[in-house]
């Protein structure tokens, strides 16, 4: 703990951005200088994907310009260098989420593939007829459908933790769901359509009292809050690189080593074997056992660069800035009579989902787009959430640390324009 504190102080004193300056930070993101339809881009769709700092873009370019070779294979210089960079990135991710060992970090395509991996490998091996899997009412389809398919295949049952009208999970109901048939809990840390920060630690403690493993979907969480998998004591943690200012097509499955070791491979082929004969194959150790075929090398290295960039920022100040944005946008949007905010959890990330009386979110999105403002409209891959609140869709503005209050003012003016057009 002491060591950690010393490191933070050291980083702060060396950090040229220690006084959080959003205008300076914005200059690190080339796309934020773009004009859209003649107006400066106001990018408020960060829950869908985040923008990339120049350092990430340059790292990927440099990789293909100077370093491109296959990993874990050749004895030649480039292959060794590429392997080093790829494995160094794994170490950065291990440190970023505070895993015990780098072998617990599996490179996958994204959070979706990570969940599919666990469902298909751990799930198929351990879930039997009559067992139960618990998810929550605010899961993304990626944390519903793989479990639903597994339950169908195994004749197991999917149970759902309900939520309140304020979009908070009902923990007393969760406790009632836990029983001797429960074999896994899979729950989202921050809801992508409501912004709710769920008490995953408490959820994990309750599950562990019954020796039930827990998977946490951290796709929305990693860019907003400090994630420490040891402190959470989660058994699996998944996230996508592109929601963490890194490239698309790369993501992480964290799993406790003892669990990953016992799991059968998810895909088979090259790199995941130790020895192959026509009679039998001996699989490689973790994490390679789960990384069949040539991986997304540039993506993994690019994600490492994104984590380097984040280290360069003071995350406490980032969190404060994001909270300011959430409070300011909630205040400004609440002032508009026709706006109804969906998701009013006490503990909420910097994301605001809303509907306008008698105006469909798609029309809101198109009008805002004409002002250069990018938001997401639709069901956000959480159709059960829409059903829960009896709405077809919402408009969602989701913020990152590079957003500003001025951009929220533009969003508010844009919403008034929507009301004028359809009023």
């Amino acid at each position: 703990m002491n060591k950690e504190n010393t490191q933070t102080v050291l980083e702060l004193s060396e950090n040229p951005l220690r006084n959080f300056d959003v205008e300076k930070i914005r200059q690190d993101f080339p796309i934020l200088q773009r004009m859209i339809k003649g107006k400066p881009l106001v990018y408020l769709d960060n829950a869908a994907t985040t923008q990339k700092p120049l350092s990430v873009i340059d790292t990927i370019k440099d990789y293909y310009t100077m370093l491109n070779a296959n990993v874990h294979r050749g004895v030649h210089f480039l292959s060794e260098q590429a392997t080093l960079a790829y494995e160094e990135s794994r170490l950065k991710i291990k440190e970023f989420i505070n895993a015990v060992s780098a072998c617990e970090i599996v490179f996958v395509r994204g959070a979706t593939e990570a969940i599919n991996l666990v469902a298909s490998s751990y799930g198929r091996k351990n879930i039997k007829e009559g067992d139960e899997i618990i998810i929550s009412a605010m899961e993304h389809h990626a944390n519903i459908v793989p479990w639903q398919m597994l339950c169908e295949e195994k004749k197991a049952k999917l149970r759902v933790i309900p939520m309140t009208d304020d979009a908070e999970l009902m923990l007393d109901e969760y406790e009632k769901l836990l029983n001797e048939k429960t074999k896994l809990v899979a729950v989202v840390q921050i809801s992508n359509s409501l912004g709710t920060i769920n008490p995953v630690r408490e959820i994990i403690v309750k599950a562990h009292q019954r020796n039930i493993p827990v998977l946490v979907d951290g796709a929305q969480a990693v860019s907003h809050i400090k994630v420490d998998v040891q402190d959470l004591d989660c058994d699996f943690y998944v996230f996508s690189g592109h929601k963490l200012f890194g490239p698309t097509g790369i993501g992480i499955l964290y799993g406790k080593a003892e669990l990953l070791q016992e799991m059968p491979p998810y895909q088979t082929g090259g790199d995941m074997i130790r020895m192959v004969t026509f009679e039998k194959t001996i699989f490689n150790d973790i994490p390679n056992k789960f990384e069949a075929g040539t991986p997304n090398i540039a993506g993994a290295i690019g994600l490492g660069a994104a984590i380097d960039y984040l280290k360069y920022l003071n995350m406490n100040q980032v969190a404060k800035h994001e909270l300011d944005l959430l409070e300011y946008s909630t205040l400004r949007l609440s002032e508009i009579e026709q706006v109804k905010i969906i998701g009013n959890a006490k503990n909420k990330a910097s994301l605001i989902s809303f509907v306008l009386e008698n105006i469909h979110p798609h029309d809101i999105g198109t009008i805002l787009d004409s002002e250069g403002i990018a938001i997401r409209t639709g069901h956000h891959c959480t159709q059960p959430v829409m059903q829960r609140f009896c709405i077809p869709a919402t408009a969602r503005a989701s913020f990152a640390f590079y957003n500003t209050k001025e951009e929220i003012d533009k969003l508010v003016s844009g919403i008034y324009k929507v009301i004028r057009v359809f009023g």
Partner: protein
Amino acid sequence: MSELSDLYQEVILDHNKSPRNYRKCENCNHDAEGYNPLCGDHIFIYIDLEDDKIKDISFQGSGCAISKSSASLMTTILKGKTKKEAEELFSKFHEVVTSKIGSEQDLSNLGKLAVFSGVRDYPARVKCASLAWHTMLNALKDEKNLSSTE
């Protein structure tokens, strides 16, 4: 660059605000349900077909301004048309909303439907505009499967 007012023309805004033939058609002998999973537009089309002629047509459902006004305008235009004429108008409408941006558009015989010519500049909204039409075709064919523009 296209202007927002090309998409949300007055006629469209008007039909969105006060949709025509927004009811269940009592004597309908054809109906179909349409759904756009992308945005949640959900529509029901009811048709009373008599001797190959659309005697009455109406709709219900929920959706964005483009999908609602498209359904509303469609019902006003198709009433009294034959099945064949309805199919021809569908093709024409489809061509207008999906034609390549910048290409010539043949808006003749489209009448009021010409107001949807701006939709082609907004590719994400083409499905909104055409949902009612796809559902109408399915109703005429008596397809009971859920229509989708996906």
